[in-house]
């Protein structure tokens, strides 16, 4: 049974309503920061239960601009998790700062117990990642931030609608970055990102920075960037944002089925503990597995498109060499990099496909 990772074909089987609106845009030609962007920003802010949303070019830009709005500059350090998509660290480097990594917990998110040891006088921002859609431990993180008077920017690129005790991500830090990349839970037809903030100052600064620092057509307040969410992509977003809750619910349901099906395979399969007060939205369904590489090959052979997010931790990437880390610095992240595997969990999976994945994983371990 084929279990593909990408679901874009199914998601856009009927794209006529979106295409109709795009055709309207081509006729109106309000391509740059037009009404669809403002409408999408409003909807996005509402979905997050936050005051402001700013549409930008990418999730990477969302993090980069948030750091710049907080004044991050060369010589500064920004603390983040050791296992995340490269763009988290890339955005820090782009802002001129140095990424300082902290090891992670079994839920793949930054370990609050190890953050304080990483804080130096040069630390400017804490940048926890809600990795895979699992919210980071924001209670303890905010406590540390408060003690050290550091702003927190949430990397919520994979975590739209995730929550802790009913409080949605993006409402913990001073700003949060979201990605609208085609494979995200809320996606568009190309690159796109959103920054969410409850601070009017941040909102004003970010709106300047994303559009060349222009106060109006002729006056340049600060040197800025060109990082705008295209109106065309906002149109797609305006259609899809109506589905976000249903998509999230479907992913959670698939994840719970996988959890139940894989539980008997412990300890060879190690699914992170789920806490009832945390809403994990399962952008990725990740777990640790014995004999991971063989399991991956086994699943691929059975046309289950499993993946690894990611096999090489950031501090061991060629790009990370200049940071001076070495193997052994982040034992949990390093162990996980060798053991993690990601199964399809998207909203277009059928129950039979979920069961097939469980059966194949079980069969793999029973055969050994």
């Amino acid at each position: 049974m084929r279990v593909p990772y990408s679901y874009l074909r199914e998601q856009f089987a009927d794209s006529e309503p979106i295409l109709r609106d795009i055709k309207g845009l081509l006729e109106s030609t309000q391509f740059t920061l037009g009404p669809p962007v403002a409408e999408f920003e409003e909807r996005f802010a509402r979905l997050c239960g936050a005051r402001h949303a700013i549409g930008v070019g990418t999730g990477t830009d969302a993090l980069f601009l948030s750091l710049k709005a907080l004044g991050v500059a060369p010589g500064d350090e920004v603390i983040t998790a050791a296992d995340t998509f490269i763009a988290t660290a890339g955005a820090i480097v782009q802002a001129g700062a140095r990424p300082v990594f902290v090891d992670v917990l079994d839920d793949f998110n930054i370990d609050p117990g190890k953050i304080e040891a990483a804080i130096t006088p040069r630390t400017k921002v804490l940048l926890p990642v809600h990795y895979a859609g699992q919210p980071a431990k924001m209670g303890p993180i905010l406590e540390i931030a408060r003690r050290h008077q550091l702003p927190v920017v949430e990397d919520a690129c994979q975590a739209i609608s995730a929550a802790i005790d009913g409080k949605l991500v993006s409402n913990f830090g001073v700003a949060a970055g979201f990605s609208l990349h085609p494979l995200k839970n809320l996606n568009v037809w190309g690159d796109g990102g959103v920054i969410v903030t409850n601070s009017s100052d941040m909102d004003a600064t970010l709106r300047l920075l994303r559009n060349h620092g222009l106060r109006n057509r002729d006056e340049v307040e600060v040197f800025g960037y060109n990082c705008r969410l295209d109106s065309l992509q906002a149109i797609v977003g305006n259609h899809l944002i109506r589905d976000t809750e249903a998509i999230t619910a479907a992913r959670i349901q698939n994840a719970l089925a996988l959890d139940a099906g894989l539980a008997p395979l412990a300890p060879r399969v190690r699914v992170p503990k789920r806490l009832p007060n945390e809403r994990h939205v399962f952008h990725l369904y990740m777990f640790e597995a014995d004999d991971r590489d063989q399991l991956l090959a086994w699943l691929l052979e059975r046309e289950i498109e499993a993946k690894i997010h990611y096999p090489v931790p950031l501090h061991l990437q060629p790009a990370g060499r200049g940071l001076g880390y070495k193997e052994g610095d982040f034992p949990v992240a390093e162990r996980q990099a060798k053991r993690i595997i990601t199964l399809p969990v998207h909203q277009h999976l059928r129950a039979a496909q979920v069961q097939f994945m469980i059966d194949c994983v079980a069969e793999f371990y029973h055969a050994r």
Partner: protein
Amino acid sequence: MTGPIMRVKYMDLPRQFEDGAVVARVMDEFKRCQFVLGPQVAEFEGRFARVCGAAHAVGLNSGTDALFFALRALGVGPGDEVITVPNSFVATAGAIVMAGATPVFVDVNAEYLMDPARLADALTPRTRAIIPVHLTGNPADLDAIGAIATRRNLPIIEDAAQAVGAAIGGRVVGSIGAAAAFSLFPLKNLGVAGDGGMLTTGSRELFEKVMLLRHHGLRNRDEVEVWGYNSRLDTIQAIVADAVLDGLEAVTATRIRNAAFYDRALAPLAPRIVVPPRRPGVRQVFHTYVVQAERRDGLREFLDSRGVETKIHYPIPIHLQKAAEGLGYKRGAFPVCEAQSERIVSLPVHEYLTPAEQQYVVDRIREFYGQ
């Protein structure tokens, strides 16, 4: 004035997409496309490189990013200086600041272009690159600038954001400097349905660096070679660009014809109106048609009241912007640019202007000056 008021828009963007066949074609491709770095991006890059006579072209998120990536790929960073002009769109200086470097300005000549005679004064030991701007679609004097750059072994990055198709002699812009940056912003001669930009270069090494940098520094899905960025031309925009590119030569030819009409018709109004100077052997593509006008603001108001939309590119030079306060320039630093900023006005020159509309614009200008 006799006769009714005629509405002459500065640009008529909706007409770009009024051709049902073009819209149907792009819409059909949208349905089936791979949204991020789909094959249409590479196809458009290949076509664009050929248009520019360059070996390589890379699709990026914006023209600003194209300048920034050229600087980054050439190793420009904090502590470095990059020379450019103060009369450009702010993004030219913005890209330099984004790279961590300091913009150093050189005054312009009567053609609104970097004045090579003043370039030497701006050079310091920290100068790392020169960004001449082909403002209005008129190529900067790359022979004279190039001679100075070569002596100092400095790379030239062409800011060709407004100048696709322009040429000096047989050399097309985008093929002359170490790299060139183009914008695909909707109002450009080659515009898409959102943000987009192109970098061209003859250097394989620079090309490969930019290809890495635009996509998170990823060598492949799992290996990160260098710290990078996320700046990709959307596949959807590449599809639009490819469709629009078919009409580029016609758009350029029409703009050149419209400019020639103004040149002739406005010449008798000199010196109250100064039409853009020409130099032989140069192909200007007239992204904007900029004249200098006596009583500029009065003229604009008058034209506006008669239905003619005009613009100013740009009323405040970059060195006098609030953003530039830290750079330490004062009013008077660039007298030519400053004087021009008070006299320049951009007349509609777009490809959808009719001869009657152009004649109307000319007649109203004459009327304003009492001729």
